[in-house]
């Protein structure tokens, strides 16, 4: 299992990736991350929510209350144009990072 320290700097990318498929809310996003990473990266709730808060301040996402007909209403997050641009930059950055780290790590252990 990977800790949030290892992936620090990519939590926003991971969440934006989920939001690229459409607006979504807290639990569904964390469940998607858990499933897509096959349980290797269970994102902590505090990490998730602090990333939402940061990205909203930076203008990468917007939020709104859902219109569930019963009970309390969830907050949905939606990626903005700026968020999409940032996501693209992070994808490119990751490819470069991966190439560099690959050169300095051995796979024959």
């Amino acid at each position, binding site marked *: 299992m990977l800790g949030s320290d290892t992936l620090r700097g990519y939590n926003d990318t991971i969440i934006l990736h989920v939001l690229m498929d459409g607006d979504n809310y*807290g639990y569904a996003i964390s469940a998607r991350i858990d499933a897509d990473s096959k349980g290797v990266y269970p994102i*902590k709730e*505090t990490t998730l929510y602090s990333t939402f808060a940061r990205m909203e301040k930076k203008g990468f996402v917007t939020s709104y209350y859902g219109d569930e007909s019963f009970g309390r209403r969830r907050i949905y997050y939606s990626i903005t144009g700026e968020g999409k641009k940032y996501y693209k930059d992070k994808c490119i950055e990751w490819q470069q990072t991966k190439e560099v780290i690959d050169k300095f790590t051995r796979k024959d252990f």
Partner: protein
Amino acid sequence: METIKNYVEALFSSIPASEEANRLKEDMLLNLEEKYNALLSTGKSEAEAVGIVIMGIGTAEDLKAALNDEKLGKSRVKVSFKGVNVEDGDDKVHVGWDGVHVESNGDGTYTVSENEDGTFSYHQENGSKFPFAAILWPLCIIAFLIMGFAFHLWHYAWLVFAAAVIVTILYSSVAEGYRKKDLFGAVEGCVWTMVVAGYLYVGFKYSFWHPGWIIFPIVGLMDGIAHSVYGYCKSRTEKEEK
């Protein structure tokens, strides 16, 4: 579910309350409830589900940092002839000729003063100061003009200003003494004010200016003695308390 709720409440209690923090907390609770129910539906026991949910929450550090981002961005330092001004979110510190003022989380202004033993203490100013001078002086001018024009008492009317000066000294020394919790200082201020008032009174009324001035060195000497006696008694009681 109650355990999870209490855990989240405890987690958020270490974060400064704000509308944003509250919004996130409510939404987090709602989503944790969904996660909890999802775990129950996969056949987990209530205790297991509570354990898994709580294990997955994480620490408050991330949240604190994310919620403070905006405030931290407002930090600034300004240096001018008036002194040094530091602003960090809601906290403000001013160091200038008129002393040190600390304003924290908007809950009032603190004035920091240096104690005789080199330590620092501060007191909180509640509400605004009574604008004594702002009211007193216009009143004096009005009184002076009325006495002069209406009753032709120009000759005595100027005494209004002398009285105002005395009252101002009295007020400020008492207020200062009260503010610093310095009873001696307050009494000292009263005594000196009364001495000046008394000297002026006997001077004008009985022309007792000449030997009258002797009151000042006498009271000065007494004040000096009282000061040292008071200081001695105070240090003794403080030693006893220790």
